[in-house]
């Protein structure tokens, strides 16, 4: 009986000890995976090409009514942002020959100077313009008054689209590439504006281009492109102390295939 007790004790102690050792051993516990802070980059294969044929769903039309060009700059360089937008703009290349006043209230030029390749940014390009005197800050006295001279342009003539050299700011891409740090694109483009200078100045600007993939609406598809960039207004002879040197511009464009 004495031997039985000893043997039983040995077995119990052995099992208990093994359990104790096993429970304290961490060899089977894998290290937790480190938290990934990287952005998941995934470019699809959408290709959007411009066109004007109504009803052709392979052609994408500029949806001016649902697009905007906004700007902002700290008031007097230190305050909360002073903001505004431009009422008239387009996605068309305005060559010297086309720098005219057009007697129309519709888009003066076809908005077809663009193409977008989601996965081949080298083939993506766009050109566009804004009519400077169509600046809209929500203050009629300022928009039709001091801002006209501040921006070096002329007042609005009702019923006309003024694409003259004094009233347009132009952009034209020179290179579009993937943004290595996000799902967006880096767009390098020429920004041309006369401002208060004697002749228009062209500077190369780099901006962030964002693609909002096409989605189905009730009767058609729609996709978006946003371009964010900054210019130094002093380069263009803008001397007003009401705005800072740097003006931030946000272009939001939508396109549909109706």
């Amino acid at each position, binding site marked *: 009986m004495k031997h039985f*007790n000893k043997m039983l*004790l040995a077995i*119990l102690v052995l099992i208990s000890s093994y359990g104790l050792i*096993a*429970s304290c051993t961490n060899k089977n516990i894998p290290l937790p995976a480190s938290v990934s802070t990287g952005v998941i980059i995934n470019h699809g294969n959408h290709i959007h090409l411009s066109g004007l044929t109504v009803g052709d769903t392979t052609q994408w039309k500029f949806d001016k009514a649902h697009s905007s060009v906004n700007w902002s700059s700290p008031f007097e360089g230190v305050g909360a942002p002073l903001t505004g937008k431009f009422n008239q703009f387009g996605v068309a290349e305005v060559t010297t020959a086309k720098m005219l006043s057009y007697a129309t209230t519709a888009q003066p030029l076809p908005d077809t100077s663009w193409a977008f390749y989601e996965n081949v940014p080298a083939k993506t390009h766009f050109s566009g313009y804004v009519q400077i005197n169509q600046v809209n800050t929500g203050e009629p006295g300022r928009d039709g008054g001091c801002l006209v001279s501040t921006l070096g342009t002329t007042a609005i003539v009702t019923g006309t689209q003024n694409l003259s050299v004094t009233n347009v700011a132009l952009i034209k891409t020179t290179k579009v590439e993937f943004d290595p740090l996000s799902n967006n694109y880096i767009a390098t483009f020429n920004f041309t504006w006369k401002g208060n200078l004697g002749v228009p100045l062209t500077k190369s600007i780099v901006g962030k281009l964002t693609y909002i993939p096409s989605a189905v609406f009730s009767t058609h598809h729609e996709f978006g492109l946003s371009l964010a960039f900054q210019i130094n207004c002093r380069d263009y002879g803008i001397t007003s102390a009401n705005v800072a040197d740097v003006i931030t511009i946000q272009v939001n464009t939508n396109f549909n295939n109706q």
Partner: protein
Amino acid sequence: MNNDLFSAISRFELMAFFSGYPLIYTLTLVIAGNDLLKEKFIGRTIPLLPLAYALVGTLFLGFQFKKLFPDYSFEHIRLTIKQPGLVAWGLLSILFWIPTFNRKTILSLLHSLVFFVLLATDLFMLLSSQSADNNMVRNDMEVYVNSLLLNVGAFAVLITLCYFFPSFKKK
């Protein structure tokens, strides 16, 4: 065996009460079996082992009552008590208050070995399966340590009672 969470908790509860007893029992017997200690105090505590086990069983019964409070209906018992077979087996330990059962101390060991086997089974699974979870064994061992403490405590309570109330031992 039902493997849901409540069954697992019930299993842990049973192990917490009873799995530590076999080691206390054999350790006491081995020490008491030493010729030098046979006639000493430790040798005279062996008959208290089944009573200590019965005390643990009584505490387990109280724990079950606490879990069921305030509804002691059959339906509530049926829904609350998982592993009813093992629970019933655990409650049988109360019988060791009866002299007929506690005279044969080995019976208390055999009774408690059922719960020790639950622990040993988990350890065996860890040994035999490479994918076994260490956390399971760690849980078992924490419960086992608590059970050892509970059973040592119950044994100490009975020894203390016998020391201060010798009539208790005679009964």
